[in-house]
């Protein structure tokens, strides 16, 4: 339990109404969006209004050895925000201002609590976009998505969050504020701190300001859906499209299990017997180029015996995408526990990974629908279970172990875009090895010697 004097001091720093310490309030910060995770009540929730307040809070926490858990919207899928060791949740919902949109340098500077969609709505007026688009764009915050290095559907062509962060302001565990990077496209001064803090999951410092890159929005797009009788045909199509030197903005895949579940739920006219489905969207500035790319995709699909549908209007485009949008809701109807994994493999291994996931589902007698971003090898094997069925949950855990083992055996990674957090900590060594873990520990201990920054996440560190 936190000392009463600490709570009083917090109230002095941020104002009484921005300190929540009643049990009812604490209950609503005991979780994030991750399934099958332990929930823990924090001792207090603090909502700072600016960087100086964050610094004072960090000083107070360090002096009293109180863990701090930075939290944006709490929509991550790795248990990243759960206050595992009690202490204080630092909610950034009040630091939600877009500070600057620079249309000459194509940058935006924001506070961490800005919702990604709000930034995109604002820059859209200038014909610009901030491309990283995790499934939670309408709720997730910039701070949270930078800390988690979120990906999204457009990763193949446009990259992920780390490709768009140009500079930051960070409050370190010692209470000091550092600023690095900025509006210059080129900057090789000092270590690449942006890439250290992007994806650091709140374990190294607290991000209080972000300068991000913006790009001109594509003016034309063409959506297509292709269904295949065999997984091999679908896999060869993905490889064939890239080999034809077309980089689609999105290249999504769905396995047969997901197709059947979606069709049963949404009745969007998907063929039950298709082994796989690809949703492809090409985009660009010039209509003729987009058209050429679409034609190239069509050829590859036909060559691989696919059945192609091309959207000829916005309404049809919307209809094609409704199949993808329905994937998660459809799966969610089947059970109270929805575990969305993000095992990722090199693009060329997609077919093997899909076959492996189907085999793992059979072996452990669990329901796994696999869909995801085929273009960048990032799959979402989604496991559905009854959270109150202990036997089933044990089989689910065994299946998850196998999924990660399979991804690593294909030269992949345990996390493509969700992060490590609590959920994948135990697999970290399998990918990095002892020496890699040692490097992680050295960095963590150098920056956060008292282990107060989001403890219990990412790397196992000795308790202080």
């Amino acid at each position, binding site marked *: 339990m936190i000392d009463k004097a600490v709570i009083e001091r917090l109230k002095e720093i941020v104002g009484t109404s921005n300190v929540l310490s009643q049990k*009812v*309030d604490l209950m609503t910060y005991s979780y994030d969006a991750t399934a099958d995770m332990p929930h823990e009540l924090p001792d207090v929730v603090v909502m700072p209004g600016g960087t100086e307040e964050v610094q004072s809070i960090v000083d107070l926490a360090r002096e009293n050895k109180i863990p701090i858990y930075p939290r944006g919207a709490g929509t991550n899928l790795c248990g990243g925000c759960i206050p595992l060791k009690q202490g204080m949740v630092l909610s950034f919902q009040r630091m939600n201002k877009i500070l600057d949109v620079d249309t000459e340098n194509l940058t935006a500077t924001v506070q961490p609590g800005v919702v990604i969609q709000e930034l995109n709505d604002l820059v859209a007026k200038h014909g610009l976009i901030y491309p990283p688009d995790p499934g939670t764009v309408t*709720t997730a915050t910039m701070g949270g998505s930078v800390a988690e290095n979120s990906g999204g559907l457009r990763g193949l062509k446009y990259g992920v969050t780390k490709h768009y962060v140009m500079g930051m302001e960070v409050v370190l565990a010692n209470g000091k504020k550092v600023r690095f990077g900025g509006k210059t496209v080129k900057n090789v001064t000092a270590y690449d701190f942006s890439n250290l803090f992007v994806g650091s999951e709140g374990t190294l410092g607290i991000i209080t300001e972000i300068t991000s890159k913006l790009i001109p929005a594509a003016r034309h797009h063409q959506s297509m859906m292709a269904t295949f009788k065999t997984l091999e045909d679908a896999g060869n199509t993905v490889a064939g499209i890239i080999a034809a030197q077309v980089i689609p903005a999105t290249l999504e895949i769905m396995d047969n299990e997901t197709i059947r579940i979606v069709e049963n739920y949404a009745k969007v006219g998907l063929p039950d017997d298709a082994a796989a489905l690809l949703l492809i969207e090409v985009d660009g500035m010039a209509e003729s180029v987009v058209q050429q790319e679409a034609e190239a995709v069509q050829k590859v699909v036909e060559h691989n015996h696919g059945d192609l549908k091309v959207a000829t209007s916005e309404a049809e485009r919307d209809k094609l995408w409704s199949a993808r949008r329905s994937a998660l*809701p459809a799966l969610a109807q089947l059970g*109270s526990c*929805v575990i969305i994994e993000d095992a990722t493999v090199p693009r060329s291994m997609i077919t093997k990974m899909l076959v492996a996931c189907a085999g793992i589902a059979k072996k452990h007698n669990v329901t796994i629908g696999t869909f995801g971003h085929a273009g960048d090898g990032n799959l979402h094997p989604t496991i559905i279970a009854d959270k109150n069925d202990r036997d089933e949950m044990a089989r689910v855990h065994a299946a998850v172990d196998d999924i990660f083992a399979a991804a690593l055996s294909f030269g992949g990674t345990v996390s493509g875009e969700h992060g490590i957090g609590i959920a994948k900590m135990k697999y970290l060594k399998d990918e990095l090895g002892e020496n890699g873990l040692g490097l992680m520990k050295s960095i963590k201990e150098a920056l956060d010697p008292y282990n107060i920054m989001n403890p219990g996440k990412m790397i196992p560190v000795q308790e202080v």
Partner: protein
Amino acid sequence: MAVKTKTPTKKTFFDDLELARKEIDRCMKCGNCMAVCPVYTSDKSEMNVARGKIAVCEAVLDGELDLDDPLVYKMIFNCLVCKSCMDNCPAEVNFDKIMLSMRAALVRKKGLFWVKKIIFGMIKNQKLFNTGMKVGSSFSGLAFRDYDSDNQRLVSPRAPFAFVGRNMGLDSNRVMPGLAGKPFRDRVPDVVKVANPTTKVAFFSGCSTNYFYPEVGMDIIEILKENNVEVHIPKDQNCCGLAVFAHGDVETARKLARKNIDAFERTGVDYVLVSCGSCGGCLEHDYRELLSGDPVYGPKAEYWGARVLELSELLVDVIKYRKPTGRIDAVVTYHDSCHLKKTMGVFTQPREIIKSIPGITFREMSKPDACCGSGGSYVLTHPKTGAEIGKRKIADVNSTGADTIATGCPGCAMQLLDFSHRYGNDQKVVHYASLLAESYRREKTPQQ
């Protein structure tokens, strides 16, 4: 005949909170509700959003929190039950059921707050309620001063009452429709017959139309006559019960539901017609849920629930209404009432009607289905948040440049009226039915 039935044999969500666990379990905590919750948008602490409320409800069921913890109480009622979160929920959690069963459980445990007890006791007794509203009308001059408007009698709270009411948003700047001297149902016969009726409906006017907007009721009668629909106006209809149900008074809601069903049965009509999404949603869905364990009224609630039509559904989908030719020069935007769109699924039809009127320029606002902040009594119990939500709505209205806001809900209309006066350009606020009726009327009186 009014059949007295005992407490239902089969329990519903609203009789046993444990039954809500099935819904609670379905919440994935994904947080999609945060994107659309009007309360959370104003006050971004997790306790205000569906995901957080569900976590608290689960903690109550697990015995980790007390149902009558003052903050739990506060949380349970800090929700407009606008169902926006349900529209955006990938797991399709019926959050309204969780919220209303929490409120019902609270009332079972703690009883009704005394003010609510008095008001709900009155609503239960239609004669008493009617007398009260009429007396209220004749004395309203003491508390409210008339406010000039070209289309309706409006009032604002007078100084001493405004001082008392200022904490409920009833300050002297609030504009409200005045209580009608003669309620709608006193102005019309039991049945309005037409020569060759295409269909017969019982018009459930709802309290707001009856006491505050009788002109809208008269407009609807006119529209139905124009379209050869025989209208019954059952005089023994009561409040729909949503107001008491939403505050957890399940037994009063059930009593009202049974009385209303009896009233419909006596008419022998094809459909029950509503002009308010809240009443309509209650009749269409909540009665079935509330009476699902009642062997006598359960099937009746199912029967009538399937026959509830909102005016625009009747006009557009069922009878293919006659397109009006009278010209109205106005720039109109349409606000989707939460219950009309999210509960009844009606949103294309009112727009179709508005657009069919010659002279009207229709302009869609951004987020037309975002809540207006009224939420029945929410704007009175939570004036600050209600006002913030209302301000966002009016900002969206203002940016359309429309001079008229049409809607399909008298509750929304009251909120929009007040907020267009305070923060808007004094846009006219109308039920879309009044636009259609006016267009029909103008066919007969050639314009200069």
